[in-house]
């Protein structure tokens, strides 16, 4: 068996029913308790009223009987006194009283001894009933000396009419019958007032007792009467009559209430008391009986008085208990029935909780709280189903976006240079760069490439992060490549990029860019900054490159970017970075800061680190600082070390010509002598000759506005490994490296006549380089020997 408390707790219907029944029981108890208390009072009062009334009736009746006896006696005694002269008439009168008064038991008209001389000592006319017939005798004789009897003496001595205490009238002449009687005795006096005898009428107390006892307010109630000494002379227990007083029992079993009541009755008081009579709780009502000194009492057992009340109480209690049990059962059923949808809802919820979101909920058209709950639940389930669907879609979309982002990330990585060292054949530059996006794709960019002995490089940072930034980054990167394909001036390149980016910049994004062009033969750095952090120069110490800040790309299309320049000394490392380095944050939102960057770079300088080591060191530093915090921004660094080799000249020669093609043979001879001195292969020498002729003729033809004016200088240098030929003029600025490459695949009709000169120079030489310095065009052509 389960724990009953547990059993009740498990069910709302049980709890609810129990509570309801519990409170109903309390209310019933209080109401019924009050009602029964009031009823008890009423019943008691009713009992008192009823008993008192009965008692009054009884007393009235007894009094009337006694009065009747007195009246009958008084009606006769005047006859007796008038006819004293006729003694025999006394028999008539005695007989007549009896005959006229059926209540009477006997009547004696007794005279003093020798009152009637002729009659002797005794004369008492006595009439009595014998077998229902009135007998009249002279009762005085020697064995019954009547004038010594109490009834006779009392009246004589008291000198007034009296009622005798009841006594057992034993008359041996009358078949030993004993009757309890009470007698009304009245003294007889002659005209002189002398006492002459006593007239006595007997009242049978059996009869009186029957009369009294007939009055029973309750089935088990009874009446009793006591005389002046407390002697019972009316009592249902005949044995007690005359032999016991009201106090007799108290001698055996002390009963103070009973004694008190006995005394009160003897005192002639009227009242009521609750006490035990013969071991039964009873209400006793008592009242004196006229002037006799007797007292009548009605004893009503409590059980009789309250019998109806108690029966009613038991019945009501029974009904209430049955009612409460029925109530409990019915409420339990009703609540269980009402809560049925709730249970099925709970079952369905369990099913739903296991993942069956499309489980149908029971339809319920109820409009009460349960109906609303059911409705809300259905709504919630539908929302849940929708939400799960959306979640699935979102997750799928997210997964597809993620996979796309991975592809994008790979594309972005492939867009940037990723082979390091990028120029293994070159000893003059060592370069290393890295981009670590904060998300799959980043908005940082860097790029570099070599063209015509110039290193083009840039670093940039698109505002924002993620896919939009990555797209603009890709655009910027492509534009950088496109714009610098034939242009070497950083500001021109920057302007070109800016104009294109500004064109359709509806997202209002912008890019900070630092763009540099390092002329490798001369070490001259031209750069243009568009709002990016100034690069740091790592030489003997760490210095900041003095940059104009300018506006970032994408803000103002007509922004005039200007080129700045400076010389880079051999051994210097140019360190470029994005703000992902300086603004890298640790968990306390503290930024790494430029000071830490510079400090760390100083140690790199001290340890003479190469670009790759520098970047590794910087990354380590940032990671140590940031620790577990998420990378807040893309982090990009580029380090470029410039280490031009010493050119150990073994041959150097110069030729200056005026701008006249007629001087070309001289040039040819000059070149021929150079190639011969270097013992160059004739084929290679021929290529060099053709290239130089084309370059020089180009200058002669186009450098100076006026034909035939101006000079062109040709310098030839060699260290034994390569031949450098430098063509210098002070004509209009012309960058042959920016010339469009001739299309050698065109048909005869489409092919332009000119434009092959520069093309040939580029094709024939290993490398060319153009610089404009001090208003001079300097074209260097390099051919490996």
């Amino acid at each position, binding site marked *: 068996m389960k724990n009953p408390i547990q059993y009740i707790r498990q069910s709302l219907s049980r709890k609810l029913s129990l509570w309801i029944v519990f409170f109903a029981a309390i209310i019933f108890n209080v109401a019924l308790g009050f009602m029964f208390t009031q009823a008890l009072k009423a019943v008691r009062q009713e009992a008192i009223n009823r008993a008192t009334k009965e008692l009054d009736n009884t007393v009235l009746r007894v009094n009337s009987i006694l009065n009747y006896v007195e009246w009958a006696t008084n009606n006769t005694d005047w006859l007796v006194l008038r006819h004293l002269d006729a003694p025999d008439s006394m028999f008539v009168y005695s007989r007549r009283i009896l005959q006229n008064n059926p209540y009477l038991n006997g009547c004696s008209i007794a005279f003093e001894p020798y009152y009637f001389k002729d009659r002797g000592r005794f004369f008492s006319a006595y009439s009595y009933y014998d077998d229902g017939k009135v007998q009249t005798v002279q009762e005085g004789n020697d064995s019954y000396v009547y004038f010594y009897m109490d009834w006779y003496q009392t009246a004589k001595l008291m000198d007034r009419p009296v009622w005798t205490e009841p006594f057992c009238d034993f008359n041996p002449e009358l078949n030993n019958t004993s009757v309890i009687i009470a007698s009304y005795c009245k003294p007889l006096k002659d005209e002189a007032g002398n006492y002459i005898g006593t007239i006595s009428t007997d009242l049978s107390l059996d009869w009186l007792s029957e009369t009294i006892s007939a009055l029973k307010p309750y089935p088990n109630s009874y009446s009793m009467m006591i005389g002046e000494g407390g002697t019972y002379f009316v009592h249902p227990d005949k044995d007690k009559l005359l032999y016991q007083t009201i106090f007799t029992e108290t001698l055996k079993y002390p009963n103070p209430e009973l004694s008190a009541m006995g005394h009160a009755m003897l005192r002639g008081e009227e009242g009521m008391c609750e006490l035990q009579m013969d071991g039964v709780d009873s209400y006793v009502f008592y009242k004196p009986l006229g002037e006799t000194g007797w007292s009548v009492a009605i004893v009503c057992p409590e059980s009789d008085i309250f019998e109806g009340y108690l029966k009613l109480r038991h019945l009501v209690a029974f009904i209430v208990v049955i009612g409460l049990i029925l109530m409990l059962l019915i409420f339990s059923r009703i609540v269980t029935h009402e809560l049925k949808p709730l249970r099925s809802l709970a079952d369905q919820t369990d099913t739903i909780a296991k993942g069956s979101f499309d489980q149908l909920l029971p339809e319920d058209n109820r409009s009460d709280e349960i109906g609303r709950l059911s409705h809300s639940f259905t709504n919630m389930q539908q929302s849940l189903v929708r939400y799960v669907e959306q979640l699935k879609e979102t997750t799928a979309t997210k997964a597809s976006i993620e996979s796309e982002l991975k592809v994008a990330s790979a594309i972005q990585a492939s867009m940037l240079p990723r082979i390091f060292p990028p120029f293994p054949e070159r000893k003059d530059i060592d370069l290393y760069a890295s981009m670590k996006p904060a998300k799959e794709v980043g908005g940082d960019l860097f790029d570099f490439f070599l063209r015509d002995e110039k290193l083009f490089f840039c670093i940039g940072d698109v505002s924002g992060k993620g896919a939009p930034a990555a797209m603009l980054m890709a655009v910027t990167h492509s534009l950088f490549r496109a714009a610098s394909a034939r242009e070497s001036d950083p500001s021109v390149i920057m302007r070109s990029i800016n104009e294109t980016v500004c064109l359709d910049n509806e997202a209002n994004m912008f890019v900070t860019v630092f763009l540099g062009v390092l002329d490798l033969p001369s070490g001259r750095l031209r750069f243009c900054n568009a709002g990016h952090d100034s690069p740091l120069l790592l030489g003997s110490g760490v210095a900041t490159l003095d940059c104009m800040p300018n506006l970032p790309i994408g803000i103002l299309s007509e922004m005039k970017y200007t080129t700045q320049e400076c010389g880079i000394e051999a051994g210097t490392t140019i360190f470029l970075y994005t703000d992902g380095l300086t603004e890298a944050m640790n968990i306390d939102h503290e930024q790494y800061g430029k000071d830490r960057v510079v400090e760390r770079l100083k140690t790199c300088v001290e340890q003479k680190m190469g670009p790759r080591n520098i970047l590794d060191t910087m990354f380590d530093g940032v990671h140590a600082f940031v620790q577990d915090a998420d990378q807040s921004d893309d982090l990009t660094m580029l380090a470029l070390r410039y280490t031009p080799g010493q050119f150990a000249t073994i041959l150097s020669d110069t030729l200056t010509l005026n701008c006249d093609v007629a001087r070309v043979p001289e040039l*040819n001879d000059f070149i021929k002598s150079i190639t011969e001195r270097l013992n160059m292969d004739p084929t290679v020498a021929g290529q060099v000759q053709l290239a130089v002729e084309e370059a020089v003729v180009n200058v002669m033809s186009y450098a100076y506005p006026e034909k035939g004016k101006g000079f062109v200088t040709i310098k030839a240098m060699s260290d034994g490994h390569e031949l450098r030929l430098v063509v210098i003029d002070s004509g209009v600025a012309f960058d042959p490296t920016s010339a469009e490459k001739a299309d050698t*695949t065109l048909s005869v009709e489409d092919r332009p006549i000119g434009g092959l000169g520069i093309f040939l120079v580029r094709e024939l030489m290993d490398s060319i380089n153009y610089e404009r310095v001090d208003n001079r065009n300097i074209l260097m052509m390099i051919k490996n020997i």
Partner: protein
Amino acid sequence: MEIKITTEGKETIAALIGRLDTMAAQEIAPKMDELKNVSGTLILDCSELSYISSSGLRIFLTLRKAAAEKGGKVIVRSMSNEIRSVFMMTGFMNLFEIQ
């Protein structure tokens, strides 16, 4: 630089001798104008041409365009390796009939 022009039936043969550098190209320009007007097949004999600059190539292309207008053709014959490599480089091999 020397140029010898001979005619054999419908064929005009121009033998280019020496170096055709920028200077030479200017010198031979008038003769080249003659060749532009040649009808029939023009054969440029390069067996003795040792050098050609872009100016020379320009003349070659001018002749080729003129011939194309008249429906004639230009044959370049006996190129040295040096000249051939320049022709290769500049895509001229595709413009001329090479013999």
